[in-house]
């Protein structure tokens, strides 16, 4: 059954090695049709443009990616209606994007940046000048791929997982409820009515 709220990919920071396999897989899965990018290096004919962004500090690393917010600030500010919901997921239509940067600024997570995009091995260009276009680029949860998010599948350390807050909540609630039985048993005096 479809989820009521947007699913998103979360990282277990203790497992991420910063290898960027996720970025490669993301780029590949979004360009296999339109740019014939295969699964080996020799098939890459366009610059690598992922939709999640591995961020590194001295002690940790993780890919930062869209959380598919319910009241997504990016969708709220996009005047071109280039950002829409597909089911519960938030998706950018590159062709409608005018690169105004409002969504980039609005996103509190830094999950959006502007990147060039390609079709048939060539950069998509402006209508008049022929200069290259850029568009908002962010995780779309691989919504067009029946196999689901490529990043999760490719991570060698299994550091990424798909988060459904409602499903996780059910499991957490059960554990919390069972814990209350133990907690109350430990009270020195059960309150008498």
């Amino acid at each position: 059954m479809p989820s009521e709220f947007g699913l998103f990919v979360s990282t277990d920071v203790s497992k991420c090695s910063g290898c960027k396999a996720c970025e490669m897989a993301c780029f590949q899965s979004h360009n296999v049709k339109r740019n014939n990018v295969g699964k080996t290096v020799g098939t890459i004919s366009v610059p690598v443009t992922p939709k999640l962004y591995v961020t590194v500090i001295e002690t940790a690393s993780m890919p930062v990616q869209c959380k598919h917010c319910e009241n997504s600030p990016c969708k709220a500010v996009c005047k071109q209606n280039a950002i829409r919901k597909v089911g519960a997921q938030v998706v950018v239509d590159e062709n409608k994007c005018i690169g105004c940067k409002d969504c980039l600024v609005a996103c509190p997570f830094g999950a959006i940046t502007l990147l060039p995009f390609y079709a048939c091995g060539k950069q998509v260009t402006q209508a008049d000048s022929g200069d290259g276009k850029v568009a908002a680029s962010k995780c779309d949860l691989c919504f067009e791929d029946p196999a689901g998010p490529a990043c999760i599948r490719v991570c060698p350390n299994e550091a990424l997982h798909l988060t459904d807050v409602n499903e996780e909540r059910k499991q957490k609630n059960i554990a919390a409820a069972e814990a209350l039985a133990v907690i109350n048993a430990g009270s020195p005096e059960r309150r008498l009515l």
Partner: protein
Amino acid sequence: MNGYVQGDPMLCIGCRTCMIGCVVAHEGRHIFEVDPDGYDFHPKLKVIKTFNVSVPVQCKHCENPACMAACKSDAIHMKDGAVQIDRDKCIGCKSCAEACPFGAVQMVTLKNEANIDGTPKTVANKCDLCQGLPKGPACLRVCPTAALRFVQEEDLNATVQAKRLGTLKLTVAAEAQQKQTPVCK
């Protein structure tokens, strides 16, 4: 330490009156005056039933809240000894719901508030200790078996102190048993 409401599975009969009491307390009188489909029914606690347990699960107003740490929208703050979510600032990113280990935060869609693009607003919802409401937590007032209680710092300190004394006495008695010498009271 923050106070919080805690349920006891040995007293809970799973009736869910607490959930209704929560909504009625937060909505106010108008809930009974408007169209029955015109108000939000979003209890801030949920009665969970497993094979051995029936009990409400709700926010524990942690001292170092995971939800507050996860919120990038500045929507979660400590206020007068409770962890509070500011709905106006919430962008529905679900980070707090994801972060809470108890599942005490639930995402809820509001009927009477919309985003600027007209889509319904979905925000994080959790126990707010009925702060700002005249009589304090409603759930524990309506529970027919008094299964919910308001645990405050004094209660926790008293519990801990009692346990410490108990531990000391036990240890003394055990040692005396070992040495077979009578204990002076």
